[in-house]
Every structure is written in C-alpha cells, then in structure tokens.
C-alpha cells in the first residue's frame, strides 16, 4: 500500500526504476495531427479551381525531456495532493504540409438570394465605400427591399400560399446545401445571366403591376423565356437533390407542376400574369390535399422519367411523358440534368490534394510546469489528474515567409490566431506525460 507522499518522493528521485527521470523517454512523439481547415477557399497556383486550405502535421517530437524539478504541496484533508512537475527547456519540431482540397469557389450567394456576388455588390450598403459620399442606399434600392419584404406576407394570406411557403421553408436547408455543394448546379443556375435578369425584371413587374412572365421577352444570353428558365431550374434543383434528399427534390417538382395546374403556365405555354394575378390565383387555389404532401417522392409522375434521364437510361417514352406535361427537354437541358446529377454523386468522393508548401516547423519552449492532482482512492490506488500546464507552443515557426500567393497570406494570418489548434498539440504532449505519471502511480500501488 503506497501513500501519496511516498509516491511523490519516488517520483522526484534522481533516477532508477519507478522514478520519473528513469522513465522519461528521449522525447514525446506525436505521429500526426490534423488535417485542419484554415480557410474555406483559396486560389492555388496550377489549379483552375483552387480549394479549401488545410494544414497537417506529422512526426512531431517534443524533447529533450529532463526533469528540472518536482515540488509538492501538503496533503489536504480529503487525501488529495498536488504536485508540480517541471520539465527543462525543450523544443517541438516536426513536419507540416500546407495544401488545398480541390473545390470550386462558391460565387453565388447561396445563403441568400442565390445571385452572383457581383450583383449583390451593386445593392451593397457599404458604409466605408464611396468617395466621401454618405454611404446610404438609394431610394430605389430601398423600395426594392421593401417590395421584396412585402411578398411573403401576401403569399401567407391564403392557405395555398402558406402551404407553398411552408414547403419552401421545410426544404430551405436542403436547397441551400445543394447549391453550396454542387458546382454544376451553380454553373447552370447563373449561366447566361438569365436568373439575374429575371430577378430584376420580377422586381420591376411587381412594382409597376406589369406582366411577370412575358411571352415576348427573353432573358440572358441564351434567350430563355421566363417560363422556360424558371421550370428548367426546378428540374435542375431536382437533379441536384434527388440522391441526398428525395423529398426536397419532389417538393421542387410539385411546385413546378402546381404552377402549371393553377396558372396554366408550362415551359412552352406562356400565360402572361401580373403579380396581382399570381396572388389572386394562389388566393383562390385550394391547398394540396394532405395525402399529396405525404406521398413518397418516387410517386410523383415525373420522378421515374426524370430519374431515367439523369441516369442516362432513358428513351423517347420518358421524354414524351415530360413533353405531355408541357415540360419538353432539349438535348442541352438533358445534358445539364445529367451533369448536375453526376456532380451530386461526385461531391462525396475524396477531393484531390493540391500541394502548396511543406517543410519543418519548430518552436523552443522554456521550462514547463505540469500540475497534477493525486488522489488516494478507497482501494488505496492513486489516481492522477493533470490540472494545469504551462506548455505553450505559441510562436510555432513554419518558415512561412516563403509560402506563395493568396494561400500563403491566408495561412499565415489564420495560423497566427489559431491558438486552439496549437492547443490540440499541447494536449497530446500533456497527455503523454500524464500517462507516464499515471503508469508510475499504478506501479507504486
């Protein structure tokens, strides 16, 4: 049966079995740490798309290890005792790799209006921008904001409108996740600028009471009508969601077919309507029966033909089913759906690793104090708990001056403030010493 005091005495002995000095290895080793993300996206030389910035450590060693002192406090009333173990000056050194995991930059406001970032900048209320002008938004922009804000309450005034909003809210995250992860969905969404033009047009039409979906106007460089693009984009969203979230995919389809049913609008049949007429139609429409809302996604009549199309196992019959509903697909649209679907599967694959820099990292640390609480248990064993450590790897040096480009700049800035990341490595070293002391306590029992 060992008393805490006798264990501490042995711990502080100069050497030999059961002593700390006699048990310390040459160094503590951490085989690997990370990889840890440093930034969401950076440009990388030699890559068209860049990727998310990461750092990974390997072969980290902390040493030489030498006991510089063991000091103890008195036993307290509850059989616990604190002991400070001081290790002499040492160095952490190891290897790092700075790299990017290849991924496209997200250049759409996927969390907001799903518009390209430059379009947003035009609406920005930059309080630091302008050459001495007051950084206010314009009256026109303000009107646009107020007008957009007024739309949802209008929709919510009718059961069918509220049902549409509920459906949108229910799958808000799923649609966001699809846009965030699927570069092809984003690409087809913003291709030719049609969506951005449609957004501006919708705003003007609501403001002036004119037609939202004109038959005689096209949008974007590809010359889409409002109906064509709106409904095709719903199919695109379906293709992006169907693998991960079939219910969200089905909701996008249902919305498209509900529009066709209630307003008579399809991709090719244009029934021009003003905002007021749209609201009146929604107002008079009956909400979908509960059974429709609960139906399995694959029960939607367009699900099977669309799935065949995105999996490239379709024939003319599948295209005819769509065409009969006024949803004709041309070859380019089929290709888009197939690419978006394929991308939704591909995003789960490991991303390519784009090297940016690698080398050695090191930091010298002075004497380090580790405070342990020793507690004698009812069965006379001694438990050891680390309660404080002065180990600090602040100043870990990577020779970062040579890191190239934007990635290098961002990595330097992020690592400078990444105290917790260094803390993870400190924790590994702390835990190795703790295990050693715990082992000695077990031996002494």
């Amino acid at each position, binding site marked *: 049966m060992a008393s805490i005091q006798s264990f501490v005495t042995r711990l502080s002995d100069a050497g030999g079995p059961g002593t700390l000095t006699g048990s310390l290895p040459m160094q503590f080793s951490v085989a*690997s*740490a990370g*990889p*840890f*993300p*440093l*930034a*969401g996206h950076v440009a990388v030389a030699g890559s068209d798309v860049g990727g*998310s910035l990461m750092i990974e450590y390997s072969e980290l060693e902390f040493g030489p290890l030498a006991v510089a002192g063991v000091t103890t406090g008195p036993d307290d009333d509850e059989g616990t005792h604190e002991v400070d173990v001081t290790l002499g000056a040492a160095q952490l050194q190891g290897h790092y790799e700075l790299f990017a995991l290849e991924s496209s930059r*997200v250049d759409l*406001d996927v*969390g*907001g*209006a799903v518009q390209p*970032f430059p379009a*947003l900048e035009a609406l*920005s*209320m*930059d*309080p*630091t*921008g302008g050459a001495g002008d*007051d*950084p*206010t*938004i314009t009256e026109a922009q*303000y009107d646009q*904001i107020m007008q*957009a*804000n007024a*739309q*949802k*309450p209008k929709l*919510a005034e009718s059961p069918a409108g509220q049902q549409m909003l509920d459906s949108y809210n229910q799958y*808000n995250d799923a649609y*966001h996740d699809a846009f965030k992860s699927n570069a092809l969905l984003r690409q087809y969404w913003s291709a030719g600028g049609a969506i951005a033009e449609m957004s501006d047009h919708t705003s003007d039409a609501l403001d002036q009471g004119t037609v939202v979906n004109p038959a005689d106007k096209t949008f974007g460089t590809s010359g889409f009508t409002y109906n064509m693009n709106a409904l095709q984009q719903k199919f695109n969203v379906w293709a992006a969601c169907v693998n991960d979230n079939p219910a969200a995919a089905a909701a996008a389809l249902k919305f498209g077919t509900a529009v066709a049913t209630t307003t008579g609008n399809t991709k090719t049949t244009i029934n021009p309507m003003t905002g007021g007429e749209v609201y009146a139609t929604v107002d008079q429409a009956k909400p979908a029966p509960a059974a429709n809302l609960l139906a399995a996604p694959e029960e939607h009549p367009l699900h099977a033909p669309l799935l065949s199309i995105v999996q490239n196992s379709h024939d003319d019959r599948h295209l005819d089913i769509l065409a009969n509903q006024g949803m004709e697909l041309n070859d380019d649209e089929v290709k888009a759906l197939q690419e978006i679907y394929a991308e939704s599967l591909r995003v789960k694959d490991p991303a390519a690793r784009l090297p940016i820099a690698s080398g050695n990292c090191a930091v010298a640390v002075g004497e380090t104090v580790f405070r342990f609480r020793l507690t004698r*248990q009812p069965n006379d*064993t001694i*438990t050891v*708990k*680390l*309660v*404080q*450590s002065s180990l*600090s790897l602040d100043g870990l040096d990577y020779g970062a001056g040579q890191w190239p480009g934007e990635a290098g700049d961002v990595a330097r800035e992020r690592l400078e*403030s*990444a*105290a*917790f*990341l260094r*803390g*993870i490595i*400190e*924790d590994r070293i*702390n*835990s190795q010493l*703790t*295990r050693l002391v*715990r082992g000695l306590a*077990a031996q002494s029992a």
Partner: protein
Amino acid sequence: MSPTDQAVLAPARGVDAEALQKEDMARFRAEVESALDPQAPYLTELEFSMFANGKKIRPRVMLLAARLVAPAGPLPDKVYKGAASLEMLHVATLIHDDVIDEAPLRRGLPSVSAARGTKIAVLVGDLQFVQALRGFAAAVDTERDMALVRRVMDAAFDVCRGELDELDRFLPETSEQRRERYYKTIDRKTAALFRLACQAGIDLAGGRSRDIRRGGFFGRALGRAFQIMDDVRDVVELDALAGKSAGVDLALGRHSLPLLYAYDSLGPDSPVGRAMRGLGAPEGADLEDALDMLRDCGAIDAAYADARREAEDALFYLEPFPPSPFRDALRRIAREVVDRPLNR
C-alpha cells in the same frame, strides 16, 4: 418614415460602433430586467444570477446581426425585446438541461434543480420558455413580423426535439448516417437558437428576405461550430478551466462528435463504443484511458476539423453583407469560437 426605415437608410459614417454595441447591450439588459419583473415572486437570486452572468453570446449575435442592416442610430425597441426573449429561451434550456443531466452545478453555482428541486426547476424553466414566447409575440408590431413569431415557435420546438434526440442512444448503421443524425440533433438543440438570433435580429431591424435567410445560415454554422467545440473541449479541457470534469459526454454515453469518430475507428466493442451503446460507461482510471484512446485515434482532430469548417462557413455567409465594424465583430465571434486558447 418609421424608426426601422430610418435605421435602414441612416448613414454609418462617423458612427462609434463600439459605443453603439455597448448601448445595445445596455438596452438589452434593461429589457431582460423588465421581462423578469412579472416573474420576480417565483424567482430566487440563483435565477437572477443566471441572467446576470454568462457571455450573452446569443443576444450579442442578435444585436450585431441587426446592425448588419441597420448600422446607425437606435434599433427599434422590438429588437431589444427580442434579444431579451432569446436569452430567456436560452436560460430555459439551461435549467431544463440541468434537470435532465442531474447536474449539481451551473457556471460554478448550484443548478436550479439542485438548489430548488426538480419540480420547481421544471416549472421555473417552463416559466422562462413561455415568457420568452410572450416576449417575442409582444415585440412584433407589423403584419410581417408575425412570421417571426412562427419562426420563434419553430425554434423552440426544435430545441425541445433536439434535447429529446440527444437522449435517444440509437446508433445508425453507417458512419455517414451517424454524423447526419448528429448534425440534425445539434441543428435543433444548439444551432436553432443561433439561427433564430440572426434571423430575428435582421428581420426586426428591417432587413431583406435574402439577408434574413443568409443570416440564418451564418447562425446555423456558428451554432454548429459552437456545439462541436463544446464536444471537443469536453475531452481536452482541464477541469479547473472548464468548470466541470473532463469526459462528461463519455461518462454519460452521449453521442458527441469526437465520440462518433472514435466509434468509427475503435469499434462498437471498445470502451467508447460500449458507453455509446449504453452498455456501461467508464469511470475513474478507465475513463482517463478511454479519453486517451479518443486522442490517439484521431477523433479529436476530426471533430475539431469539422468545427473549423463550420466557422469558415460562417465567415462565408457574412461576405455579402456590407463591410462594417458589426460584420467584423461577428467575424471575430466566429473565429473566437474555434481559436480560443485551450487550457489558458
């Protein structure tokens, strides 16, 4: 033009952002005091101290989110009332959490359940919950704001569902499904209030739908990072600094993210796996050994990497907002969640 309209249109140049933030927090605290008044006969110093202490990160985030779209002048009263209600909602969850966990302490003080018994704690928690909802309902003053009340109800519902999800020890078959379930749980349990904070702040300050939506995703990412860091710190933070014993999640068999990663690499029959399956949680030296296994198998690193990824996501959602000291402050909060030093 209403105060909201003025706030939206007002110029931000020359605004002392720091002074505004202090004033916003002072007005928030005043609203909390006023919301506590009707409950005063039922509360003790303990509950009042819960409102007085703490970092107030949710109301801070809500007020800063409001400032993203209304960078100058006083915010509408309803924003401060909303922030007070949000904090009340949070305190309600803390009181109920301590009942569920049978926690003796909360922030170094006795928990309400320990000090006043479970029955009173449940009811005092309920009181906060209901008062929070009443506060939001009383704060709205336009038809459009009514949508916010619905959002608050949804968030409160989500928090309750998340708490129940967490108690369910069901482990899906694949690691992907297990993590999917984890995110669903924390989105409800933790991220829902952060999301609500941002959406409500922007909404009540007169922001656009797109800003409200984007703010919500910022809140979701921030809330996720916050919860994952809580999970990680549970393993690596020293007791004295954490104010609780390390490894509580493992001892309770909670399906925290580091434990889920450890389950993948150590397997269902490891001490970690057994604890997660409800087959006996490690104690004493066995608990310390199990925590070391978590370190060695890479589970901490993997979870911390996920937290950093969420924090980076949060920064992404801030980008489309106009540059301002308030946006910078939100950026700092997101970075601080994952960069705050360990064990200092």
